């Protein structure tokens, strides 16, 4: 037990060290907030599996790894450009070990304010959006991030701006020389009537472990639309806890597609508060799990007002000794009449040793609502497999084709064709599907 406490002690010490460097600015509201968050982290500690929300996601083994605070790292253009998205003309914000790397970034949409969190902190805290949406009282990782975060993306889409080019937030962890732990903090604001697409991808260079504890605070204004595509492609030695807090105003739409392709331990907390009437939250997720991976998606659709809708579809394909967790919580508060909330989790288990833990959690305090949830898990459908084989398709190819098809209805929610196609291809490769993906007729 002392071992697992060590990382916590190191993080507390790091906070004290930073505090000493602050000199005069220790009494700023920002620092007071951070101090409070650090105290909260100290009280909560890292969650153990005795914590209901962390029952299947055992973070303890990660705490034994000698992580140390991530330092800036200079990558070459060649190293970074591997991760640019092909065929997509995007604004790119690159972060290496959590630090903004302007030399690798690219801004093409001048109507949007894009910078990094560090720069945004020059605004007084009262006016900034820092820690306005995310709470940290009960979430130790968010508390930790609130205390220690020192960089991340800061994006503000002004009212009425329809962004034609997406924004790509590219996170690269460089673990070549040590095992870094980082706490990126992202703030995204979509003004009223604005529309934007944000792609978020994470990758690793290097053979050591990495630990990313990210927090995103996202506000979606009235009549605004935000589409978010998250591609999780870190190395199989990496740990990640990603907490995303969304606040939605009237008539807004927030859609997110999370595609988890790799990573040893991936925990996604996705919370959307539907705070304005007629708002819509869509959560879609695809998990391709293998080896001893753990991928845990925790979602919360918090319906506070009437006439809102939330849709959730999470699909898992799990092989080897991988573990999937899906916990979908829907809260319908007393005022939230005429709520529509749908949730579905479907899993294909490819081995006897793969596991899925799925838990729908509906807390409904209004009476005039439509809520549904469903979960299925099992092997590939034998009859479908036999059908394809009876047409001459060998068993392994037929299996790959069916898995690929299973994944496709999540991918189809990605509106950027080159992104969807490239994900489709990498998933096909993962699943060994060599058949033609699509055949266009005339």
């Amino acid at each position, binding site marked *: 037990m002392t071992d697992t406490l060590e990382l916590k002690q190191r993080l507390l010490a790091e906070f004290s060290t930073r505090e000493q460097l602050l000199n005069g600015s220790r009494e700023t509201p920002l620092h007071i907030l951070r101090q409070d968050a650090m105290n909260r982290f100290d009280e909560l500690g890292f969650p153990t599996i005795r914590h209901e929300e962390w029952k299947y996601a055992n973070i303890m083994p990660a705490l034994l790894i000698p992580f140390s605070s991530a330092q800036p790292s200079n990558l070459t253009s060649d190293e970074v450009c591997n991760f640019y998205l092909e065929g997509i003309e995007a604004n790119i914000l690159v972060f290496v070990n959590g630090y903004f790397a302007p030399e690798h970034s690219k801004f093409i949409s001048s109507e949007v304010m894009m910078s990094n969190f560090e720069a945004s902190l020059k605004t007084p805290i009262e006016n900034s959006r820092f820690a306005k949406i995310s709470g940290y009282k009960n979430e130790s990782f968010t508390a930790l991030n609130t205390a220690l975060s020192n960089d991340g993306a800061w994006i503000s889409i002004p009212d009425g701006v329809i962004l034609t080019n997406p924004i790509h937030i590219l996170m690269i962890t460089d673990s070549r020389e040590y095992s870094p732990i980082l706490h990126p903090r992202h703030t995204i604001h979509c003004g009223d009537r604005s529309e934007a697409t944000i792609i978020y991808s994470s990758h690793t260079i290097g053979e050591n472990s990495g630990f990313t504890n990210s927090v995103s605070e996202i506000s979606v204004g009235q009549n605004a639309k935000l589409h978010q595509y998250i591609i999780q492609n870190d190395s199989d030695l990496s740990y990640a806890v990603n907490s995303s807090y969304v606040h939605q105003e009237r008539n807004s739409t927030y859609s997110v597609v999370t595609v988890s392709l790799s990573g040893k331990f991936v925990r996604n907390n996705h919370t959307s508060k539907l705070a304005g009437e007629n708002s819509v939250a869509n959560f879609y997720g695809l998990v391709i799990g293998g080896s001893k991976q753990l991928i845990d998606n925790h979602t919360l659709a918090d319906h506070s007002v009437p006439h809102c809708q939330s849709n959730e579809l999470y699909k898992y394909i799990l092989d080897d000794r991988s573990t999937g967790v899906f916990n979908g919580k829907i809260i319908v508060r007393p005022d939230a009449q005429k709520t529509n909330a749908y949730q579905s989790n479907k899993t294909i288990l490819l081995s006897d040793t793969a596991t899925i833990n799925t838990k729908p959690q509906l807390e409904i305090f209004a009476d005039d609502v439509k809520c549904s949830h469903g979960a299925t898990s099992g092997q590939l459908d034998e009859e479908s497999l036999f*059908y394809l084989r*009876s047409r001459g398709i*060998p068993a392994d190819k037929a299996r790959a084709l069916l898995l690929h098809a299973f994944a496709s209805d999540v991918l189809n929610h990605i509106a950027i064709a080159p992104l969807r196609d490239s994900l489709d291809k990498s998933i096909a490769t993962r699943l060994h599907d060599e058949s033609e993906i699509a*055949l266009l*007729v005339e």
Partner: protein
Amino acid sequence: MLSINNLQASVEGKEILKGINLTVNPGEVHAIMGPNGSGKSTLASVLAGRADYEITGGEVLFEDKDLLEMSPEERSHEGVFLAFQYPVEIPGVSTANFLKTALNEVRKHRGEEQLDAMDFLKLMKEKAKLMDIELSFLQRSLNEGFSGGEKKRNEIFQMAMLNPKLSILDETDSGLDIDALKIVSNGVNSLRSENNATILITHYQRLLDYIIPDFVHVLYKGKIVKSGGKELALELEARGYDWVKDEVGE
């Protein structure tokens, strides 16, 4: 072409086929009729290689090769085709997409060149026309949301694309209205040649008005109890299956 000798098969310990003997030569059409539960669909499934059945005795030779030793895909490569009684719906896989993969697998086995997208499209257009199928239909998820008639047409379309030596049509007529029945029958008839053979499995005589069989067999309680020409089907239609049961002595 096909030689079934004393074939016995069971499912979950229950014997369904109790010694089937049947020989099918190139160019022939055989109809297998019989009351419900007589083992008709089991025979079709066993020939196509469905895993649910245990072969407890006998043999099946297809062009002198042991068919029962082959995987379902190998049977397809050798030229056996099963038109399913209940074609499965596969969301996310288009007919065109999967069929291109299938056809190229079959061609690979035959030592033929792979078809590229253009050639495949050309072939698909030709066969789709035969079955009165819109090309856009083939871009949709396989059988998903298709009517019973559309699914059966799609089965015969696939058969036309794969050009098998032996086609087994399992209750292809069930659930078809008269127009769909005509389209399906026309398709089957136009694919008939002296090199291929067809086994029609059906409960009703109706299909045989459109696809004229050379032989009619009555399957009852896991055995072929009576064989004859096409007129046997008419007799069954007129008199039902009871007289056959009486003849067998039950």
